[in-house]
């Protein structure tokens, strides 16, 4: 009896082994759907990956589905997950937004998959829930800071600012020269958050445990002077009259174009904008540089970093092995090379063995020192805390266009955050 059982077990595991071996060596076949956002970058990369993967595995068909970005995209992802209609493989944010899609219930864990060995722990920590890893990086790491127009800096003989006061002094000179000092694009509200979000490294240097206390409901934006600073900076650039005339209606592509062509000198943005510059105004790629949002002390100058977005596998997938194989391909050095070729290099990769090409655009070169030895960087709040209030972008539009005072905006944001914390069922709220 025991013998037969043992024999049967051995047979089963042998069979299992053979199947695994098959899966690794042989070509894959089958069908996958792959849901991404509609940014030109994402589409270009996804198409390049799918083309390369299906060239290696001719029996595989992968359909790319496209969804809008921003809040509308969040909605689509949540609804499709809740109704069991999610694509096999999909692209979504890491960090706090990832926590809001109930990963343990909806996603396929990839903790022990072979490619995960090459992925940095700092990334794994923002795509993990309940002790399992669910994500694989879609893109390189990003920084949140300020793009600047190099020709304007050369023409006016300006230095890269290390403190906020130096930044404002530069703005003053640019304005005096009759140019737009700071570009804002509130026509797309999400872009208005940068001065607040990218200031978080500076918050951390003053209040190192802000994130934990914030999650626990003990620290508030309005009552933490270092945290109110971001809102104040937003208000200062507006009040000083540094903004472009159409800041209320301009959009993200406008902002990208303006900073690249010199219609404006500074544009606060995430470094994924480098890809958009390369795509839309390639002739001016060399004209754009980047620096971290300055704080009040030059000695601690450092960059607020963003973990890349991620690809996940839905638990409802009909082809889990194929999905894993494809995601593993994305998370391999080969995947990075295809990405570099398709949209260029936009920042340091979170995957071991992924190299940046030698001739990176200046804005990327400006960002790298913050990540290297002796450089200072710290993650954005959304990677340290699951809470991000959904109305921040409206509040920052208000503060950034003079409708509301900074302190008032910070207090309003604390209200907004409370709702999100309650929705997530966190203790202490």
């Amino acid at each position, binding site marked *: 009896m025991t013998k037969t059982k043992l024999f049967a077990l051995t047979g089963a595991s042998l069979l299992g082994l053979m199947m695994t071996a098959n899966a690794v060596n042989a070509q894959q076949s089958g069908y996958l759907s792959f849901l991404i956002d509609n940014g030109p970058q994402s589409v270009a990369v996804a198409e390049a990956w799918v083309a390369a993967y299906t060239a290696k595995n001719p029996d595989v068909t992968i359909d790319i589905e496209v969804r809008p970005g921003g*809040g*509308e995209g*969040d*909605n689509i992802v*949540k*609804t499709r*997950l*809740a109704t069991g209609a999610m694509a096999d493989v999909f692209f979504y944010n890491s960090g706090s937004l990832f926590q*809001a899609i*109930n990963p343990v*219930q*909806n996603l396929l864990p990839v903790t022990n998959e072979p490619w995960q060995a090459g992925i940095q722990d700092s990334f794994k920590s923002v795509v993990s829930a309940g002790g399992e890893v669910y994500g694989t990086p879609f893109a390189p790491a990003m920084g949140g800071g300020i793009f600047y127009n190099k020709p304007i800096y050369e023409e006016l003989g300006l230095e890269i600012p290390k403190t906020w006061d130096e930044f404002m002094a530069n703005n003053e000179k640019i304005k005096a020269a009759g140019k737009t000092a700071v570009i804002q694009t*509130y026509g797309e*509200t999400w872009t208005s958050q940068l001065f607040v979000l990218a200031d978080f490294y500076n918050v951390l240097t003053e209040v190192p445990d802000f994130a934990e206390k914030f999650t626990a409901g003990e620290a508030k934006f309005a009552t933490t002077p270092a945290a109110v600073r971001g809102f104040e900076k937003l208000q200062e650039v507006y009040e000083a009259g540094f903004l472009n*005339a*159409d800041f*209320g*209606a301009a959009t993200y592509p406008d902002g990208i174009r303006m900073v690249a062509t010199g219609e404006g000198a500074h544009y606060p943005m995430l470094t994924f904008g480098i890809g958009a510059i390369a795509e839309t105004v390639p002739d001016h790629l060399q004209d754009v540089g980047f620096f971290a949002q300055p704080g009040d002390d030059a000695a601690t100058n450092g960059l607020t970093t963003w973990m890349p977005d991620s690809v996940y596998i839905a638990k409802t997938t009909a082809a889990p092995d194929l999905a894993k194989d494809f995601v593993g391909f994305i998370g391999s050095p080969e995947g990075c090379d295809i990405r570099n070729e398709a949209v260029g290099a936009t920042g340091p990769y979170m995957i071991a063995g992924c190299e940046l090409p030698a001739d990176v655009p200046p804005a990327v070169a400006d960002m790298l020192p913050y990540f290297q030895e002796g450089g200072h960087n710290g993650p954005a709040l959304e990677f340290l805390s699951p809470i991000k209030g*959904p*109305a921040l972008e*409206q*509040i920052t*539009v*208000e503060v950034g*266009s003079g*409708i*509301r005072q900074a302190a008032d905006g910070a207090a*309003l944001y604390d*209200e907004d955050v409370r*709702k*999100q914390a*309650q*929705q997530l*069922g966190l203790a202490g709220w």
Partner: protein
Amino acid sequence: MTASAVPALKMQRRSLYPGWFYAPAAVVYSVLFLAPTFASLYFSLTRWTLFDATFIGLDNFAQFFREPFLIQGLVNTVIYAVITSGLKVVIGMMLAVMLTSQIMARGYLRSVIFFPVLVSTIGVGMTFTVLMHPTLGMINQTLAMIGIQGPGWLVDPKLALFSVALVDVWKGVGLATVIYIAGLVAIPKDYYEAARIDGATKLQNFFYVTLPLSRPATATVITLSFIGGLRTFDLIWAMTKGGPGFASDTVASVIYKQYQAGFYGLSTAGNVVLFILIAVLVVPLTMFLNRKQGHE
């Protein structure tokens, strides 16, 4: 006497068809309307993530009324409904009077006036967003040509709501005009004849004959456009998304933002509030308008 009256009454009430003929309609109505309505009443009392729901009593309603811009949103909603339905009544009436008189190219003008009604609201919203751009928009560039610095139609918090309301009127006035044309054509010619014999001027004709006798049309236009104004969402969302900041938020856009943020219970509670708001405002309004009609 009484005994014979009862069967006679019963006979009268008996329908030609058996009751279960209603069943298919009743099933469709219950499944697609009643069930979701009652389910939403329940979900409005929960903290709902789509994945699971926790019962929290009336907290959502308390939270909804604490929304910083809800009160502003309520006021905006009513302002928007009053402006749009008021302008549609006035302009629609004027256009209808013009288009029922003997003018050139009447048929062509009627279709031109009606045309915006046929265009998708989102398309209209996006087009006007481009036209109303503060520096590059055609409206302000035209104004600049005659030396006027145009306002930031959609980016000035004081103006945004009114700009959207104007576009709503532009788009919706065709329907009001058509209803009025039908109402005006139905007024018997005898009244105008009698007025002419009495020596009434054109103005008197309008105020003492046309206006009172088109009251049914006015009631229809007001009711339709007022309800439409209260639930307005698509145009606001396409043009300002409730912005800048929260300046042009209406109840519907506040609700949608809660839904977008994943606060499903809260947004359902908001819908219950909107339902009650519309009922409270519109039921007395229609009763008032219909009572007046009965006096005619």
